């Protein structure tokens, strides 16, 4: 039944050749990503795909100019500094995050989320940070706590600036998690009965009240954001907000639904450069 509803939604997006379910022969994350890009570029041939990383700003020069002005010397540099201090402060046992994360934590964010075969589930960068904490005798951070995990990643993710998103979906189990995330993305939810796709595919580039809706390609590379220049929001915190905005009960941040969604959603931005801690309205 859910499959039918999703298919109805998909056929409503003329030209989006996305298949659901790993059974289909040509379905692959890369072909999905290409289909999304084909859909957006046929609707908006004058917007460069590389500008999708700016989201709604790619569709409005006046907004983009404000982003550029603010990003020249962001008002939230102090908050990023707080994150740097958190990152560089050793654990009680003397070890640091750089000791347990690959490559000392530099240029790795684009590899996440990744499918951890041993654990049999998707692991986000935040999960990897928490694994590092608990392995060194510290308590895990709550992933939805902007003062701890949010602030730490506001700095830590900048160590991966410029890295191209590189989410891999290789094993059948990984594919199943990817497909689960895709299903969440395309499923209608909440009192308003919208899917992520209702806005970010069908209505990308159009206005929802006064706001231009951003395309899903280019989304996942630019987190966390500082709304209004001072309110820190992580990607899953934004998912939480989206669920609430369609009046659905949000799944737990850091749980399987959100992590699988982030897995699918991030792979849509494969090949695009990461840039953490940016301004949004």
């Amino acid at each position, binding site marked *: 039944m859910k499959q039918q509803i999703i298919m109805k939604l998909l056929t409503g997006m003329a030209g989006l050749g996305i298949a659901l379910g790993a059974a289909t022969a040509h379905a692959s994350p890369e072909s999905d990503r290409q289909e999304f890009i084909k859909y957006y570029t046929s609707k908006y041939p004058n917007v460069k795909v590389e500008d999708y990383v700016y989201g709604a700003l790619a569709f409005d020069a006046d907004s983009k100019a404000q982003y550029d002005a603010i990003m020249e010397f962001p*008002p939230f540099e102090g908050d990023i500094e707080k994150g740097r201090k958190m990152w560089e402060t050793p654990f009680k046992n003397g070890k640091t995050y750089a000791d347990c994360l690959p490559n000392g934590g530099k240029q790795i964010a684009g590899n996440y989320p990744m499918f951890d075969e041993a654990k049999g589930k998707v692991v986000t960068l935040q999960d990897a940070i928490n694994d590092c904490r608990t392995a060194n005798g510290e308590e895990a951070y709550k992933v939805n706590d902007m003062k701890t995990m949010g602030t730490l990643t506001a700095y830590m993710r900048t160590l991966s600036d410029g890295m191209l998103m590189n989410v891999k979906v290789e094993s059948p189990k990984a594919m199943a998690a990817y497909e689960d995330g895709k299903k969440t993305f395309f499923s209608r939810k909440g009192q308003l009965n919208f899917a992520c796709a209702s806005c970010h595919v069908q209505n990308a580039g159009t206005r929802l009240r006064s706001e231009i809706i951003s395309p899903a390609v280019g989304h996942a590379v630019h987190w966390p954001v500082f709304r209004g220049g001072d309110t820190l929001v992580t990607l899953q915190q934004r998912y939480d907000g989206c669920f609430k905005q369609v009046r659905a009960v949000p799944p737990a941040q850091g749980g399987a639904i959100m992590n699988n969604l982030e897995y699918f959603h991030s792979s849509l931005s494969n090949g695009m450069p990461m840039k953490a801690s940016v301004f949004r309205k």
Partner: protein
Amino acid sequence: MAEPMRIRATMAGDVADVKVLMNHPMETGLRKDAKTGQLVPAYFIQEVTATINGATVLSADFGSGVSKNPYLGFKVKGPKKGDKVVVNWADNKGDKNSAETLIG
């Protein structure tokens, strides 16, 4: 004021381009604290001065209408690379802050 002021000063041709990011909540006194429902008292930078090699180049009065973590950009003709830029501010509670940099 946990974070210090940041100053970037570079020569652009024969003009020193100075950019300052101050750290201050710039409370208007109109905002209600989300938890207590009480008005957060006005608390903002009121005076800013900038000197280059000891000579005042800019002096400003700010109101609470300047954005949180105030940004200020100005340009000065005459200074050279290596000259010292000093920026000072004072807020309505009497707190002060100062930072300096050399023009790069």
